[in-house]
């Protein structure tokens, strides 16, 4: 094969094509990863079909039914301090939780991948700038970024998404940069460079598609981190504003009733825990699959 024809036929594509079917077979052999995937699918379905699954409104108070215990008639998980059905609020609460987790990660990826690829491919000044940006972001804990945004724009779900997205930039930039550096030295990229393929084509056709698996692994650990972060922020009152339910703000109001009615503090936490656990199990499974040396 002459060098001139190589850029069109990257060896990695040839390698991944036949193993695509084996991918699912190998994934299926890891029970924790399959359980994680099932958990993620269930949470997504609950969030999407919330209006059909919930029997009660998550926001309308029923003062005749305040703080009824679990298994009370009509309310299998009881009611909260305003008489709202706990299960219905949990079901609707999944929407804000998933929205933040997924959108914050997408936002971080959309910004981080171009920066990381450019830094790793061009090195030099570009790299220096990218690394200083990540250093500065790392110097501010995500809570402070959220605090700053809340102070400037007022507390809202959008600010939580932006704050958590910014907080995830450093990790994603570093991964895209490391991958771009490694890929740049590969023969098929070097061949593309010497044959005069445009930089834009190299970056998007040769580098980006070949770093999808580490980025996917990064996304699978970013989403649960963002979910925990958003729960933390709404617990502090900086995120989803009442009466809209989120698992974090449900916990915040439940803490007042901890002595007499602890169950309303237990269920939202279990929901957060099971969701992040599912994403983490899935993420571990994907990492084992793509990077066996980490096992």
């Amino acid at each position: 094969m002459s060098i001139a024809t190589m850029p069109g036929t990257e060896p990695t594509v040839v390698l991944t094509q036949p193993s695509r079917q084996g991918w699912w077979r190998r994934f299926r052999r890891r029970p924790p990863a399959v359980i994680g995937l099932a958990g993620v699918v269930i949470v997504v379905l609950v969030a999407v079909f919330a209006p059909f699954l919930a029997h009660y409104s998550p926001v309308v108070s029923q003062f005749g039914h305040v703080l009824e215990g679990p298994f009370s008639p009509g309310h299998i998980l009881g009611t909260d301090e305003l008489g709202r059905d706990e299960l219905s609020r949990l079901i609707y609460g999944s929407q804000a939780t998933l929205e933040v987790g997924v959108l914050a990660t997408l936002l971080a990826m959309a910004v981080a991948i171009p920066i990381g690829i450019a830094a790793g491919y061009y090195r030099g000044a570009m790299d220096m700038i990218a690394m200083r940006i990540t250093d500065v972001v790392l110097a501010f804990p995500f809570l402070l970024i959220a605090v700053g945004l809340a102070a400037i724009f007022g507390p809202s779900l959008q600010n939580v998404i932006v704050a958590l997205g910014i907080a995830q930039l450093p990790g994603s930039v570093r991964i895209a940069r490391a991958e771009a550096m490694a890929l740049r030295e590969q023969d098929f990229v070097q061949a593309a460079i010497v044959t005069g393929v445009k930089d834009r084509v190299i970056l998007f056709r040769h580098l980006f598609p070949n770093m999808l698996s580490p980025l996917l692994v990064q996304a699978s650990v970013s989403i649960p981190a963002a979910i925990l972060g958003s729960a933390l922020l709404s617990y502090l009152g900086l995120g989803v504003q009442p009466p809209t339910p989120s698992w974090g703000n449900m916990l915040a109001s439940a803490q007042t009733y901890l002595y007499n009615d602890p169950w309303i503090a237990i269920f939202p936490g279990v929901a957060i825990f099971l969701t992040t656990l599912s994403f983490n199990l899935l993420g571990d499974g994907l990492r084992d699959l793509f990077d066996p040396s980490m096992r």
Partner: protein
Amino acid sequence: MRAYLLRRAGISLLTLIIASIVVFLGVRAVPGSPATALTGNTNFSPAALAAINRAYGLDNPLPVQYVDWVGQVVTGHLGSSPVTGMPVTTELGNAFPITFELTVLSMVIALLLGIPTGILAAIRRGRSADYASNAAALFGLSIPSFWFGIMLILLLAVVLKWLPASGFVSFSVNPGQNLAHIIMPAFVLGTGVAAVLMRQTRSGMLETLRQDYVRTARAKGLSEWVVILKHSLRNSLVTVATVIGLQFGILLSGVAVTEEVFGLPGIGQLTINAVFQRDYPTIQAVALLTAVIVIVINLVMDFVYMILSPKVRLAGEPG
């Protein structure tokens, strides 16, 4: 090696300068005039506004304001809280020891739990001890720290009544009470970091146990413990040190919410109260202080990294 140290210190200083500019501009991005942000008043006559702008130097160009501000910060003048009227430095001085004690104690718990279980999991790879450690780490990574805190309060304070649910007693007033108040929040924070350290130690150990020099050490007839602790662990700690530095910023966010759950009047609670009271001088000071702490810790961790890693120590440049 010296050149590397200087280069790292220079980069940290540059990061610090950029971070301080971000903090400086942040307060000026607050809706309304900076005079409102800094004094907490909203209704000024034009004359009063001009007087305040002159008093705070807000009528100067931004670069001049920035240099003035840095000068004040370096000499310890961070302004006064418009809410309490107290100097921000006094407020920080009162809150800092509590947060410091909480952070140090939780780091100690994290190291004591995370590193031994990581070693155990690596040398018993694929056996029940490995699975148990991994499951515990996954639990620690997935559980929301503040909910874990609430559940511990429910169990240990409400049901069993062993520990107080919230509040703080200074060490100098009553050491026993101090420990009783701080041990639960420190445990909550420590277990979260321990989970990350465990996983990092385990994968680092698995990596080094495969290396030729470990095989050589075993072949020399060294005892298994010497091989594990001296040859393998020491080199695994290189990456663990970096992770501790990176975890620190995350830990500080956790500290704030944990203080809120346990009613500890530390920096975290100060910050959260400041946000809801629109106390911008305090927010500004906390943001700057946090950035300084995170940057300094990461610089120190770089030096630790260098001391631990013979590759870096000898070559003078990290790989």
